[in-house]
């Protein structure tokens, strides 16, 4: 994408823009962006990554650009995947056809930590378990995208997609006049519509949607409150809700109001102390009973996590073929499962060229990037894999694409990934954009904000 002076077409204009920007203006704008982020209080932590809630995630002003036709293909691929993942969830909590057909090992599914027997037999409204599917993608060539992982539970970071755009438009209105950039600002409205479309059958009238947050101490509280505000729905904590009769209610100053759809940003284990962890103070006692008897919908559905497990990931192309009868549009990164003896052997022999990840890890922690690690680290990992092979998978190091990025010395290529947010309800929607994360350190492949990653605005050029 960025090779000496040869950049792909969409970037050539931007390159002039960035080169013509005087140094003083650049730092002025950079400071302005930072001040804006601080002012709105957008915090550092992306869910599951930890980190101080007061730190800012670095924002790179150089946008990442997709052309309309590139995006169109990517969109088809993302939607296809989101559809297959949901079909898989309905299936494995129902008849289990894909298992019976021998297309995916039964034990991998049913013994999975994220497989939730409490929802067996439930077909949620419109047959959707995962309503917001975040798919992490990398690009390795002009038309080659690989999926790194799927996020079917409650993918975070969408507030960055919206705020990054907002800030770019405020700072560089000219760029948006010269380029026809597809807007992303309807995401909150679309999300609300998606959630309302999966209201339970028992709901008559306009569905009331709420966002359930663990509370203001949570590192992603900003995002929860931002989304609630943009969607025009209440942001509730567990104690704001209660169960009575067949429904779930919200405590208001006018008395109880029935809640129909809960977009929850808390983990399965905490949703209901009567069903899951009895010590949970964050959830709502009895909520799962109301859910299972069809009085309320919970998004994403409890148990949806079984579809985004790193071991299940390997089988997503199989799901696409099995449920949709289509060829997968987006590729999976070839993955070795260390739990398989022959895979494990290969991994141990090729550690210096592979990326090794923990099955349930996230945030770029507990990860080995073979080509960039010294012998001691590699040996340490080999030891870990021998001890707990089932805990690790390995993937080849991909030749990740880069994107022009502002650095100390000017403009330089840096590795990026992309997380678009696919909304699944009555319809499947994808706003033209997403969260682009960038590894700000030269040569680094780790884009996580906790490890020196930053974010960029993501542009999709209109037709």
């Amino acid at each position, binding site marked *: 994408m960025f090779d000496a002076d040869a950049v792909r077409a969409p970037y050539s204009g931007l390159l002039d823009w960035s080169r013509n920007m005087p140094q003083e203006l650049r730092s002025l704008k950079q400071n302005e962006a930072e001040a804006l982020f601080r002012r709105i209080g957008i915090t550092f932590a992306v869910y599951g990554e930890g980190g101080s809630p007061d730190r800012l995630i670095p924002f790179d002003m150089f946008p990442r650009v997709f052309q309309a036709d590139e995006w169109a293909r990517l969109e088809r691929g993302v939607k296809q995947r989101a559809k297959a993942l949901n079909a898989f969830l309905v299936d494995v*909590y*129902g008849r*289990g056809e894909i*298992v019976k057909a021998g297309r995916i090992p*039964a*034990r991998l599914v*049913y*013994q999975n*930590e994220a*497989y939730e*027997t*409490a*929802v*067996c*037999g*439930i077909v949620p409204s419109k047959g959707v378990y995962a309503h917001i599917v975040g798919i992490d993608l990398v690009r390795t060539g002009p038309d080659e995208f690989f999926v790194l992982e799927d996020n079917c539970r409650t993918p975070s970071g969408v507030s960055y997609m919206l705020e990054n755009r907002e800030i770019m438009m405020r700072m560089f209105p000219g760029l948006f006049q010269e380029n026809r950039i597809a807007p992303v600002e309807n995401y909150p409205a679309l999300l609300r519509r998606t959630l309302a479309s999966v209201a339970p059958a028992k709901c008559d009238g306009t569905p009331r949607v709420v966002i359930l947050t663990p509370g203001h101490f949570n590192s992603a509280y900003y995002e929860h409150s931002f989304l609630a505000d943009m969607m025009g729905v209440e942001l509730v904590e567990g104690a704001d809700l*209660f*169960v*009575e*009769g*067949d*429904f779930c209610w919200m405590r208001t100053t006018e008395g109880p109001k029935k809640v129909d759809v809960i977009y929850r940003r808390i983990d399965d284990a905490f949703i209901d*102390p*009567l*069903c899951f962890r*009895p010590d949970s103070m964050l959830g709502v*006692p*009895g909520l799962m*009973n*109301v859910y*299972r*008897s*069809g*009085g309320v919908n919970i998004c994403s559905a409890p148990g949806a996590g079984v579809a985004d497990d790193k071991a299940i990931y390997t089988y997503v192309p199989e799901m696409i073929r099995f449920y949709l009868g289509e060829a997968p549009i987006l590729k999976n990164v070839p993955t070795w499962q260390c739990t398989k003896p022959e895979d494990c052997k290969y991994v141990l022999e090729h550690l210096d060229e592979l990326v090794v990840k923990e099955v349930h890890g996230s945030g770029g922690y507990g990860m080995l990037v073979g080509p960039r690690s010294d012998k001691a680290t590699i040996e340490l990992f080999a030891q870990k894999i021998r001890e707990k092979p089932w805990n690790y998978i390995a993937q080849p190091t991909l030749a990740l694409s880069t994107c022009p990025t502002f650095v100390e010395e000017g403009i330089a290529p840096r590795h990026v990934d992309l997380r678009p947010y696919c909304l699944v309800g009555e319809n499947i929607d994808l706003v033209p954009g997403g969260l682009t994360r960038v590894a700000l350190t030269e040569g680094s492949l780790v884009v996580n904000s906790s490890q020196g990653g930053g974010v960029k605005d993501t542009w999709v050029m209109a037709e």
Partner: protein
Amino acid sequence: MRLTISHETVYRFNPPMRGVVQSHRLTPSQFEGQQVIEWQVQVDGATRGAAFRDGAGDWIETVTLLGPVSEVRVSVRGTIETRDLAGVLRGHRETVPPLAYLRPTIATEADKALRALASRALADVPQDDFLARAHALSAAVSAAIRYSPGETVAGTSAAQALAQGMGVCQDHTHALIAVAQASDIPARYVTGYLESGSDGGAHEASHAWAELWIEGIGWIGFDPSNECCPDDRYVRVGSGHDAEGAAPIRGVAEGTGIEAMEVDVRIEDANSPGNQGQTQQ
């Protein structure tokens, strides 16, 4: 056998609570071994709702009381006709795949001692005789944990019970689940009632036992406390991964009150005089 059951659970709160929510699993299972003649669950002053049959086939109901709540009285009364199926859960509709019952919980996690118990029990049993393997495991648990009330608590795990060598039906059941899962046999916790007649051989009217998944047959009950498989003296109510998951009543009270609980269970053969019951505090 026609059995009549009365099961009363009383919770008292001091000071009164702001509200109480309970999830009830108090209605007998539907399968060929038992047929409900009549069944009633009553909670005075409560709002009931959110009722459904879960994936494991249990009937679940939700009960809420708005505060101040100083007492919750849950009364179960009913008559049921049972049949001896030698422990086989025939004709039970459920959707949870048996393999999902291979995953242990904190209570049923097998430690080294439990694994050792399992492999000793199976040492001389043929690999392909699944039924014999299950019997051997149940017998091993009965022998390793002596029935002795008051030695364990609600939170005691299978591993702790085995280490102590003593426990009640809950501990037997957790231990059997643990050794079964360690031997790659899906297993689960079952709650219900037991009519033990006048011979005094059985221990508790409100009872628990395990079910093991036997390839080719299906779910079969094993009661290590009484060293037998459930017959027509047993009434099956619900199941789960462990005692907590299968609990007849799971509840949360909101407030700072101290909770006290009293249980009274009576079960009798409707066709023969005399009864037996017991009170747990």
